[in-house]
């Protein structure tokens, strides 16, 4: 939160414009022990706001006051509400409103009220606001590429106003910066499945599998592309089991003998779906087992569970449960 940028921080009580208003104090408790200057500005602004709000005064000075109050405390949802009422009453230029929000967006990028207010404005401006909006969201994401509010808003803009054409490429750019960005992977899926220009999941699957595999090669311990791969096959288990590229990457990662947890998990899932492993695959898994005291189980799926219980010990209970489930299924 910052001190008010407007009016040079001059107290409202000293402005001629506000002479006719009696500020309303919060009726709450004893005076603070150590008030400091900018806290005073905040308290005074809110006292004047309360007066205007109670009087339901929807004037230009009320608009200015809500701006001041928002600068001082952007979390106050009542101030945002009232600002909307005033904007409606005054029929204000909403392009200017976008500029106002943009100025405070950077330091308030996780504020629900700000994003919702932005959406309210965009709804009124329509598709003319589209490219400006997509651009603003990009600038917020450049500061924090996982900002949940920004992504949620971006999805809404795309669906309400369009702009899909460049989105897959935007995801690619973000993933180039950080291949671990789960939000970007999620957005990729969003675009692939919903963009009117790409032909849907079946049309995109092959290239997306290749993309995921490339990401896995670089960082096999990255949760995201593994989940993404699984997601590409949705309910089409048969195609998943028969995808040579997926089998190939599992084998490749397992053979490196490092960062193989997700690869083993994928293989375990495939086995449970009925995949018949080759001898090469079996040998690769067996080679991971380093215990002298205990031989690896003859059943490959069980063996994988044992390995994972050992190397992913934080989730040992999960792997034991998977193993027990195998027995029940057998």
């Amino acid at each position, binding site marked *: 939160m910052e001190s008010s940028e407007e009016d040079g921080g001059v107290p409202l009580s000293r402005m001629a414009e506000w002479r006719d208003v009696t500020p309303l104090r919060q009726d709450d408790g004893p005076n603070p022990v150590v008030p400091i200057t900018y806290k005073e500005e905040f308290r005074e602004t809110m006292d004047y706001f309360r007066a205007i709000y109670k009087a339901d005064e929807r004037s230009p000075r009320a608009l200015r006051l809500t701006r001041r109050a928002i600068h001082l*405390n952007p979390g106050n949802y009542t101030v945002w509400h009232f600002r909307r009422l005033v904007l409606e009453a005054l029929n204000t230029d909403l392009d200017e409103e976008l500029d106002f929000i943009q100025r405070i967006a950077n330091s308030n990028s996780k504020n629900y009220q700000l994003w919702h207010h932005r959406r309210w404005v965009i709804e009124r401006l329509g598709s003319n606001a589209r490219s400006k909006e997509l651009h603003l969201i990009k600038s917020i994401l450049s500061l924090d590429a996982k900002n949940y509010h920004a992504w949620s808003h971006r999805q809404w803009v795309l669906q309400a106003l369009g702009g899909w054409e460049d989105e897959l490429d935007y995801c690619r750019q973000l993933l180039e910066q950080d291949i671990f960005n789960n939000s970007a992977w999620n957005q990729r899926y969003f675009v692939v499945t919903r963009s009117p220009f790409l032909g849907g999941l079946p049309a995109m699957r092959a290239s997306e599998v290749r993309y995921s595999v490339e990401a896995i090669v670089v960082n096999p311990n990255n949760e995201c592309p593994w989940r993404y791969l699984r*997601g590409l096959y949705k309910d089409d288990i048969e195609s998943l089991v028969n995808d040579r590229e997926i089998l190939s990457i599992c084998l490749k990662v397992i053979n490196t003998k490092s960062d193989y947890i997700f690869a083993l998990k994928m293989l375990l899932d495939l086995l449970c779906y009925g995949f018949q492993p080759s001898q090469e695959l079996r040998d690769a898994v067996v080679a991971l087992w380093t215990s002298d005291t205990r031989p690896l189980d003859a059943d490959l799926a069980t063996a994988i569970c044992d390995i994972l219980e050992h190397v992913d010990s934080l989730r040992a209970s999960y792997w034991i449960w998977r193993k027990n489930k195998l027995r029940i299924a057998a």
Partner: protein
Amino acid sequence: MGELAVDKHVQYIVSIDKKKDSFESVVMDHLRMNGAYWGLTTLDLLGKLDSINAGEVVSWTMECQHESGGFSGNIGHDPHILYTLSAVQVLALFNKLDVLDIDKVATYIAGLQNEEGSFSGDMWGEVDTRFSYIAICCLSILRCLDKINVEKAVGYILSCKNLDGGFGCTPGGESHAGQIFCCVGALAITGSLHHVDKDLLGWWLCERQVKSGGLNGRPEKLPDVCYSWWVLSSLIMIDRVHWIDKEKLVKFILDCQDLENGGISDRPDDAVDVFHTYFGVAGLSLLEYPGLKAVDPAYALPVDVINRIFFGR
């Protein structure tokens, strides 16, 4: 392993209530109803709810109710579904639900349901699965879930289910532990958990545990004490909590305490706040840390409060 500094945390919460004119308090003025819920529930879980004057809290709460039936975050603010749930929860803690005109509150909430089953936060129309949970939880506590279209509400929540088994804020939104808690909680309360792929979601949730023992809310993010609640309660509701390392999580939460001044922070050595204090203590309760009251994972209230509501006096 460290210990839970119960007395310090009680002192911390009680002092927040007293420091109404502190700068922090004034700035958080608009969400005081949430703060009250977090602080009071924590006190109850610690067995110290009587540290607070129930009468004062109840009358202040009722002053926050508007004509529409909804509650605001504080006196002088507009109503919102967020604060309506917190108000009802606060009254439930003090066994004062009978001061409510239940019909009035229920009408407010039912009025926020949209065509396709989703819920808006208030008259301004923001939609989010958080609000679906809030509506369902609140109406369930008030024993009038029939005021809304439950089938459509469930349908909307399911439309927010992602391929990783998780849920986002709106259809297509990234799976996020907070949103997952809301969706799973709502599904649990409406008896619709069979729609959840518990194995798939359970694995996504247990993957939230990182080396330090803490839990994050999404892949490749930092751990935060509040996820000790959202991830944990979700795991419990789908009966998969044994998939995380409980001991390590307990240690993480205890390390987030401010042992000198009381309170719990998001991660070790950060500043404390009542929000994280609540989620830390509630998380410990779910982990069956000794000396704490049991907490209901779906309603986020002490189990004895829930029993009182559903099984009568």
